[in-house]
């Protein structure tokens, strides 16, 4: 069988906004609960067949945004369009949208089959058609033999799959998932993540997932919207969010990052030089940055983007190398995390891959080490 070639433009419509119409348009949506601003002027375009993750801490407004998409909350201002239709005022029971609840919200007095059939009955489908669809969905989530059970006779993972099947039963254009894996234990969560992506890809339904778990977001999402204090802090593909954060919040929220303050000393179109007393050296950034000389800004670098050595390495431009004393080592098997105290008192976290088995010559506690990085490893952050 010949494998069909996948074209990048097909799978990433958001990269070509001129030729692709967004499927879900959230325009300037604001939601207030009394005086509390839960969602503040959020605009977001989501494309067909995307698996979009809304990522944020508790109280970031991500769940409120999801509930407005489902129709459980009305925006205080702004509009929500789904598939070209204004849905802002449409009640939940008339929306082509289904939701999988964090608590699963399975009807406890109904069997698994009745739960899945509930939405289909509301569409007045024939009995035969309903039972066919229910059987189809049960096999999709691999619960063929559990149709007659009640929800309380199922394990957490099985309940999660029933909730998914029930939400997919009406073949919604858009499926909203509120912390879909939150109640599962770690191992089950990892398995289910891939299953969820597989189902999403095979059905082609647009998924919007709310999660506070960044690992989950990274694994699942085509794109991630990071939310903070009711606003969208950044929207991008997982690699963008991790490698090119647009703000100190995003850099700190996703993964771990070392962040230092610095002052711009050279501002050229091709490079920028930043002096950081915290770091005890100059930072040479190999690309232009929108900033002004003397401007105070921040520079963030991931632990794995730095290299440790005992001898001072040669670096061009007389920058991008500093030294410190190893304070702590956390051995994690595949990598080791070093905490190095710089002269300024600033501590950097550097991770090194343990590529040599049982390395007797590994850098150890209280050693003086040099830390270096390349001129494109860090992110310059102005906000």
């Amino acid at each position: 069988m010949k494998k069909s070639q996948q074209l990048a433009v097909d799978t990433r419509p958001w990269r070509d906004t001129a030729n692709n119409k967004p499927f879900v348009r959230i325009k300037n949506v604001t939601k207030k609960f009394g005086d509390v601003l839960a969602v503040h002027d959020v605009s977001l375009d989501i494309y067909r067949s995307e698996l979009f993750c809304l990522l944020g801490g508790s109280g970031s407004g991500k769940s409120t945004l999801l509930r407005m998409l489902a129709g459980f909350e009305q925006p205080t201002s702004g509009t929500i369009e789904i598939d070209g239709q204004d849905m802002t005022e449409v009640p939940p029971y008339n929306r082509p949208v289904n939701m999988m609840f964090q608590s699963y919200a399975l009807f406890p007095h109904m069997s698994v089959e009745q739960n899945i059939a509930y939405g289909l009955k509301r569409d007045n489908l024939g009995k035969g058609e309903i039972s066919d669809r229910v059987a189809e969905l049960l096999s999709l989530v691999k619960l063929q033999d559990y149709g007659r059970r009640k929800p309380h006779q199922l394990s957490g993972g099985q309940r999660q799959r029933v909730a998914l099947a029930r939400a997919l039963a009406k073949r919604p254009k858009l499926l909203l998932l509120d912390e879909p894996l939150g109640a599962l234990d770690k191992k089950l969560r990892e398995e289910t993540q891939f299953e969820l992506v597989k189902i999403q890809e095979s059905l082609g339904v647009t998924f919007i997932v709310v999660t506070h778990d960044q690992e989950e977001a990274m694994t699942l999402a085509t794109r991630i919207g990071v939310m903070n204090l009711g606003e969208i802090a950044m929207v991008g593909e997982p690699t963008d969010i991790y490698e090119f954060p647009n703000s100190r919040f995003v850099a700190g929220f996703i993964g771990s990052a070392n962040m230092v303050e610095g002052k711009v000393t050279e501002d050229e179109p091709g490079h920028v030089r930043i002096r950081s007393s915290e770091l005890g050296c100059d930072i040479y950034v190999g690309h232009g940055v929108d900033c002004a000389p003397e401007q105070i800004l921040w520079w963030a670098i991931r632990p794995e983007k730095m290299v440790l050595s005992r001898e001072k390495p040669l670096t061009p431009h007389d920058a991008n190398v500093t030294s410190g004393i190893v304070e702590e080592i956390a051995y994690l098997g595949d990598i080791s995390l070093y905490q190095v105290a710089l002269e300024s008192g600033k501590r950097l976290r550097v991770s090194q891959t343990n590529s040599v088995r049982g390395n007797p010559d590994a850098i150890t506690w209280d050693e003086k080490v040099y830390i270096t990085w390349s001129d494109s490893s860090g992110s310059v952050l102005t906000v």
Partner: protein
Amino acid sequence: MTTARDPTIPPPRRLKPWNAVERGLAKVGISGRMLVLAAPVLWLLVFFLIPLAVVFGISLSTKQFGRPPYSPLLTTEEGTVQLTLHLNNYIRLFTDNLYIAAYLSSIRIAFISTVITLFVGYPMAYAIARAPDRWRNILLMLVILPFFTSFLLRVYALTGFMRGNGVINQFLGLFGLEPLVMMQTDFAVYVGIVYTYLPFMILPLYTTLVKLDVSLFEASADLGARPLRTFLSVTLPLSLPGIIAGSMLVFIPAIGEYVIPSLLGGPETLMIGRVLWDEFFTAANWPRAAAVAVAMLLAVVIPIMLLQRAQSAVVER
């Protein structure tokens, strides 16, 4: 007379007083748990089961003049003990139309009152359960508030509303409407029972409804159910335990109700409580009254037990 202490015997261990009591009781085979259970068991025995047995005993005797006004069950005569059980009180219950009519009428009035109470109480319980947190306790307090006044007083107050020149008729008179006859009718009895027993319906319904997860209603709406469909398919079946509990709490006392029909009802309002009263105080026929009471108890208890079995089956599912 003192004896020298034997050094091989260890000095007696000091026991806390409670330990000693516990050991003493344990010797007789009584544990602390039994003591805790003993209190309610004793209470029920002395104030419920023994009186019930006495009533049952009286129901099997026959009326006689004197004190007590019924014949003894056991008679001793020249060394023989004779047990005389009169069943004619019970036989009369089934042969005399008055009793059958009174039972049926009581059940009918209690049933209709329960249904009305359910229809009035359900929306109230639902509204309280869905009210904002800070309102909920205030509203619940308002439901219980009538209990702070004497029950008798409240029923009397209703007559002030419903009598010929009462509040309601005076109000109607303002619009030139004819006064309504409400007192001494079944209508007044229904009003009295529904008013009095409404809190007993609202409270169990409230406790069931407040526990229901809001996301269940949202899930139902999300799957395309309009509010009425959500109510019928989700809210109603899940509040069934509350409906059953509330209905029993209204139905059982309403069957034996005496005060409300005698104060508000007319002469044709036939209820078993009144028959019992007449039998006991007017006719001074204690055995007959006792038989009426025992029959009423059975008539209520047997359906309730069946209902409760059905309910626990529902809960298990």
